[in-house]
């Protein structure tokens, strides 16, 4: 199942900050859950992400519905980890053994996954890819690389649509592409992946012609008509970034629970 997550225009919360500030915030979230071993910090960061989603005008219900399969995967991670670790005090022993260390490790793993995923979704929802590309150019990264990002995002809805159309075509023709065994997997790849890829490559050709036909790559630099300026909201995000880093370093140093 492909979650339908993409940028849409908004004017609240993180929509108002410059794309580079959003990049910084994402780095802050990732650092916090990767550096800090504290479950409380991870829980706090997860709640902060959800809070920022709300402040930015995103509906939590819609977020949960779009990402339910990934969130479910987080729960699966928790359960798998909780049952696989046998060290620590036994809390439940009923065929399967559940220990306090297992629960803690499961929660660590699940929250780490959920924060990485939800903060990435938050970033995609509130960051205008065009503005992000310009910001990247502004800090001196060659524009060819920044456009890779924009084009990748252009292709996401296209691949989603193509995938659905190909699956529908299989249904109409009564073609069974259930993955049973290696042969089934190969058949599924050939009947699904191949048509989607071919169509993607055709589109890449047209886009390449369209870009070259408008002098993309003619010069080493290009004009950035829309310049990003650091605003007051960006300073708040910068403060949040510093706070996240400081918290995760302190949590690690003083072994917060």
């Amino acid at each position, binding site marked *: 199942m492909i979650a339908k997550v993409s940028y849409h225009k908004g004017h609240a919360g993180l929509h108002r900050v410059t794309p580079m500030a959003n990049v910084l915030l994402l780095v802050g979230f990732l650092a916090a859950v990767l550096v800090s071993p504290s479950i409380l910090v991870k829980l706090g960061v997860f709640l902060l992400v959800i809070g920022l989603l709300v402040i930015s005008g995103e509906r939590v219900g819609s977020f949960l519905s779009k990402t339910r399969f990934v969130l479910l995967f987080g729960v699966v991670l928790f359960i798998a980890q909780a049952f696989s670790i046998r060290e620590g005090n036994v809390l439940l022993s009923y065929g399967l053994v559940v220990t306090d260390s297992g629960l803690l490790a499961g929660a660590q793993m699940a929250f780490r996954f959920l924060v990485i995923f939800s903060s990435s979704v938050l970033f995609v929802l509130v960051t205008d890819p065009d503005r992000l590309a310009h910001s990247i150019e502004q800090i001196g990264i060659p524009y060819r690389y920044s456009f890779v990002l924009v084009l990748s995002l*252009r292709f996401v809805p296209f691949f989603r649509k193509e995938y659905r159309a190909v699956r529908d075509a299989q249904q109409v023709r009564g*073609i069974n592409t259930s993955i049973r065994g290696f042969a089934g997997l190969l058949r599924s790849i050939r009947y699904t992946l191949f048509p989607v890829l071919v169509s993607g490559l*055709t589109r890449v050709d047209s886009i390449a012609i369209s870009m070259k036909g*408008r*002098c993309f790559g003619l*010069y080493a630099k*290009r004009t950035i008509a829309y310049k990003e300026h650091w605003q007051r909201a960006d300073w708040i995000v910068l403060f949040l970034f510093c706070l996240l880093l400081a918290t995760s370093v302190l949590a690690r140093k003083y072994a917060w629970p």
Partner: protein
Amino acid sequence: MSYVNGTKIAVDSLSVRYADREELALGDVSEQIDPGEVVVVSGASGCGKSTLCKALCKFIPEMIPAHVEGEILIDGLSIRNIRSQDIATRLGLVQQDPDSQICTLNVWQEVAFGPENLCLPREEVRARVEESLLAAGISHLVNRETTTLSGGEKQRLAIASILAMRPSVVLLDEPTANLDPQGAKAIFEIMDDLRKNGKHTLIVAEHRLVPLLRMHPRLLLLSRGKVVAHRSSVCHKDLEALGLRADWNLDLPPLPRAEKATLYVDRVSFGYEGISLFEDLSFKLWPGEILGIIGPNGGGKTTLLRLIAGLEKPASGCIARDGDPGVGFIFQQPHQQIFERTVRRELEVDGLIDSEDIPRVLEGARLAGLENAPPLSLSLGEQRRLTFAIALSRNSDLLLLDEPFIGQDAKNVSWIISQLVAARRHGTATVLVSHDIPLVASLCDRLLYLGERTFIGKKDEVLCQLREAGETAFTPTYWEQEQG
């Protein structure tokens, strides 16, 4: 304004052979195009129209591998040793598929993309964006996200993006092929405006010729890569003489009365993301009947086919069939229905066509000799005929056809029509979505218009209602008679 003064193009004995093909895509084409001219390049699908456009801009062979012989001179300078980007400020190409040429996510950014690449000062970029949006009639869309635009709006955006490069020659490669009649009409009007402002040479690869007649173009007719006819200041008579104006006066006999309908659509409502496409839509489709669905892009035509095929579920109401629930369904994009490595294997996937019958089926579909060809290497028109042949092989009592005529020349259109007429005779009902208004008006027993309003009924009644509603682009007159 600082347009490059008129550009002169000279093509001398140009031949193009694609890397993976044996036959020539263009053979010994020599032509001269003067500043300010309007040149229409026409011909059947695969005749070399797109190849000529791409070769003039040097995308062939720079981006599409091909063996090229002969010369193309732009203002006397051979393009052999220069890059396509060096030509882009003189020649700008608008491609066929509006979706495949947009590379940013915002209208303003898209139009600014070219001038930004030219390293122009910011003020100049802004001025060009404003001017180009105005010329393409889409200033009101300036803040929109490109993904939210309709097909027609996207094509106008593609034109604006090319105009922002201020080329003196604008090439349009079947710019209306994927558009609804309204969108296509707007594109023809923009072309006419460009001609009237006198700053551009227009080279238009197009098969809908009547709306272009008001521009008094020079016509180049291609067939299998060769120029087979020239006409200057082409008119209706020329089109008739060259067999470029098909008259689909089919005059089908009335259908015999049937007791049971093939399809029942009962008070069906459906919408996406809070937008209603249709509400309480009801009709019955009788055995043999051909129902034509017309209307603007995004009006719900394809969605209705998907609902009938069971690929979507109605929000309310019901769709019922009498008898076999299977359908013969051809999608608008044929590659989405193609899965196998050869045409033969593709025909065998469903297990509905005997191996011995395959040559006969292919000959019928005008695909003889392509048995072992990879289906995805076929032209779009050929792919459509292949999927149509597969849909027919299902022998279902219901055919759902989404734009089967795109990319077909007159002979292939005739073949598809003959199959539909035969199916009609045998009692197979057909739901046909098409933007080819004159053909739909001639072939179909009834029409369903899905737009802001919904009209359904006998074709004359619906066309009359459309005329009264001011939707002239959806009436045959616009496409058959010279305008203004």
